């Protein structure tokens, strides 16, 4: 290997906050044309490191070297002018503006008198968009684009500067498998132009697919760099969390009880059509499909948030109509929603109050809330779910993603539902908590809950489900048992390739 100058090098970065050493002598470098994964559990220091790199935090020690030049990042603008570009997990686009305006915001090409030169703007933008091979043009309103395409706009924006290094922060969190392929093509393209890429993700299969090297942080310390081709998931995981992880297909089966919920020919406008399935007590049924396949919408209909246009829902064999979430909860249906922060939790409220929210009317001592019972419920589910928090008074917004999700799960378990629906249970959650939540879902089934798991991650669906329902474009394509399912036929089903329906 010839000696090359790294595109970006961090040397001995130290950043402390009062009482905490957030980054402790972290060094790592990205070569031009390299995809370098940065991994670590939540709280390991990835975000802090990126903030140092982005000029938001100033490190106490250490230096940042771009190419040959040692730089001091004083602001996000400074970082950008040095060719360091961030593609964020959460997008920051002006939805009402066109793609072109978003890409050149702040540096729109001008004509005389300071007027915007629209022709040149659109031409320039379309040129970039062509390189990305996207299916929309410069004039499209950003708000009309899918999340994946909005991300492409962010990437296009990165391409307008002479990027030395591009940082992708959880770029695939809300992308479908097909959209990921496009993203990976773009990354490969950047790579071939000699751009160094830092790729932050929790998703092992992606890391192993596209990265060249993997650097791991733990507790603010640099734990080492592995060459992707020479390592495996276990080694990386051990480096990250210091213990082994269990990632396999579900083989355990429980004694199944009666049918807890049955759906017959359920439709809801254009969202899903003619959907029929049953879930028995003790069974986990996974719903797998692309984003927009109608899975979340089915869950929302069962939870009374949407009104079905046709079809029937049976609970314990009895036909029923679910009018509202209140009605759904009363009938024993619980939903752990897709968007934890937006739908699952009141972030400004404490752990206890969040957990007891759905049953607050039942926890009364006279006219008042029985706080003792509330704390008892919180303690019970904190222990059972191993929720790590200093105490029930802690604001939920201060917890890590995994612990937040456990609060949501605890909230619904404490309602003792008959049917538990979990939508994307481990999105944005670190590896350790992820496997805990998977184990929990299996345990719940063992205890006789009927569980519906909606997930966009194949390993997750394979790992927890007894049966897997594959959806495509609002319809159920196939149902597989965990023994018969293969990755290939699952991918084919959710891409709309096969139509034969198994029982």
């Amino acid at each position: 290997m010839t000696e090359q100058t790294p595109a970006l090098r961090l040397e001995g970065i130290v950043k402390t906050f009062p009482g905490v050493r957030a980054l402790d002598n972290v060094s790592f470098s990205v070569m031009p044309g390299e995809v370098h994964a940065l991994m670590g559990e939540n709280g390991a220091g990835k975000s802090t490191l990126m903030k140092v790199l982005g000029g938001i935090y100033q490190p106490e020690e250490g230096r940042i070297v771009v190419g040959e030049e040692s730089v001091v990042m004083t602001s996000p603008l400074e970082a950008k002018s040095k060719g360091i570009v961030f593609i964020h997990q959460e997008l920051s686009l002006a939805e009402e503006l066109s793609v072109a305006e978003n890409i050149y915001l702040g540096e729109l090409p001008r004509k005389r008198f300071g007027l915007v030169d629209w022709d040149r703007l659109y031409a320039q933008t379309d040129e970039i968009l062509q390189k990305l091979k996207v299916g929309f043009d410069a004039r499209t309103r950003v708000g009309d684009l899918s999340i994946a395409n909005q991300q492409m706009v962010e990437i296009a924006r990165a391409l307008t500067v002479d990027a030395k290094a591009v940082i992708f922060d959880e770029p695939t969190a809300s992308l479908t498998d097909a959209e990921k392929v496009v993203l990976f093509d773009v990354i490969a393209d950047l790579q071939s132009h000699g751009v160094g890429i830092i790729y932050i993700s929790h998703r092992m299969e992606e890391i192993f697919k596209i990265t060249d090297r993997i650097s791991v942080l733990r507790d603010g310390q640099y734990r080492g760099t592995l060459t992707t081709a020479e390592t495996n998931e276990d080694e990386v995981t051990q480096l990250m969390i210091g213990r082994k992880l269990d990632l396999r297909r579900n083989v355990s089966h429980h004694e199944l009880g009666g049918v807890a919920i049955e759906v017959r020919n359920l439709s809801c406008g254009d969202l899903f059509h003619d959907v029929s399935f049953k879930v028995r007590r003790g069974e986990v049924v996974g719903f797998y499909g692309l984003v927009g396949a109608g899975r979340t919408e089915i869950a929302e209909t069962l939870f009374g948030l949407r009104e079905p246009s046709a079809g029937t829902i049976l609970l314990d064999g009895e036909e029923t109509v679910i009018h509202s979430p209140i009605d759904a909860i009363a009938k024993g249906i619980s939903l752990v929603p897709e968007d934890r922060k937006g739908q699952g939790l009141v972030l400004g409220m404490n752990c206890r109050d969040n957990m007891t929210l759905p049953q607050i009317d039942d926890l009364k001592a006279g006219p008042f809330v029985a706080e003792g019972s509330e704390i008892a419920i919180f303690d019970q589910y904190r222990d059972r779910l191993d929720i790590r928090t200093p105490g029930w008074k802690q604001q939920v917004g201060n917890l890590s993603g995994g612990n937040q999700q456990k609060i949501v799960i605890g909230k619904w378990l404490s309602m003792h539902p008959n049917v538990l629906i979990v939508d994307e249970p481990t999105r944005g959650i670190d590896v350790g908590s992820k496997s805990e939540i998977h184990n929990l879902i299996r345990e719940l089934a063992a205890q006789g809950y009927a569980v519906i798991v909606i997930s966009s991650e194949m390993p997750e669906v394979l790992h927890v489900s007894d049966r897997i329902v594959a959806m495509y474009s609002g319809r159920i394509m196939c149902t597989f048992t965990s023994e018969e399912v293969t990755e290939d036929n699952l991918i084919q089903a959710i891409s709309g390739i096969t139509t034969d329906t198994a029982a």
Partner: protein
Amino acid sequence: MSNISGNQMGGFGSLKEEAMTRLSKSSIGGFLARQGILVAFAFFIIGFTIANERFLDPDNIMGVVRSSAILGVMALGVTFVVISGNLDLSVGSMMSFSTIVVLDLHDKIGPTLAIPAMFAMTLCLGAIIGFLVGYLKLNSLIVTLGMLSAIHGLTLTYSGGKNMDISDKEGTWFGVFGQGDLLGIPVPILLFALLAAFLGMVLAKTPFGRKVYAVGGNGVAATFSGIPRARVVFTCYLMSALCVATAGLIQASRSLGSQNTVGQGLELEVLAAVILGGASLLGGSGTIFKTVIGVLILGFIQNGLLLVGLQFYVQYVVTWIIIILAVWLDIAAKRGKLWSQIA
């Protein structure tokens, strides 16, 4: 064009990182951001006391509390509305309405019937707002700003534009709510204290109170938890109307006669008191106790300005300055800095 903001980068909100942010707030700017109102209030008190030693006189203090009672009662109801994530700018003109109605009915049907009739009519107005904001999900700023004007029109129509006076001011017991004393405590203060204690319990201790916080903190998550968001918002506006009716009763009883515009401008003072107390305009935070503190701070500052010898009208400007200061500090406390380039 650079969009690196703290929020976006903080996608991994871990315990430890949050602990760091909180600790990093322990700067002077951070302290001012969190305790700024109290610091400013302390300066005011010291300044006023130096300028006029009567400021800390027990009689003066009692006078301030007494004259703050009407504003305070209204602020209690608005606290519910603000915590639920909405605004109520109609309370001033609604209070004029209650005052005029109860004075008019006093002579027509007697005080015993006039009071419940006035409460019922005021609650109807609250129900209309509650329906529009809660069930139809219309923007509360627009709805209540419109109601401010509509109720003003309603009051003028009702009174024919004339001032309203009780004919037999000597022979009625109606003055007890505004002028009476019980065990040496003025009744307005007593009503304010009782209502504050009652509503404070409702907000802090009952399931309904918890729901108000949930709906204001995150309405979507509240809905996903089976909280009837519309009904909670509706009830908050009823509470606000109930408080306004009580304030109108005190006002009418105090003077036994009134102009049509008696409550004009109070909506902003009420809002100032609530925000001053620390309720966030974004909803989800605030307490009745803090609102009472906010009411008293506002009352003392206005009183101080008069004692220092400034014209009464200066307080309108000062109220505005206080609102701006309170809102600024509210935002500053969230980010831990008085000023920040990002967010």
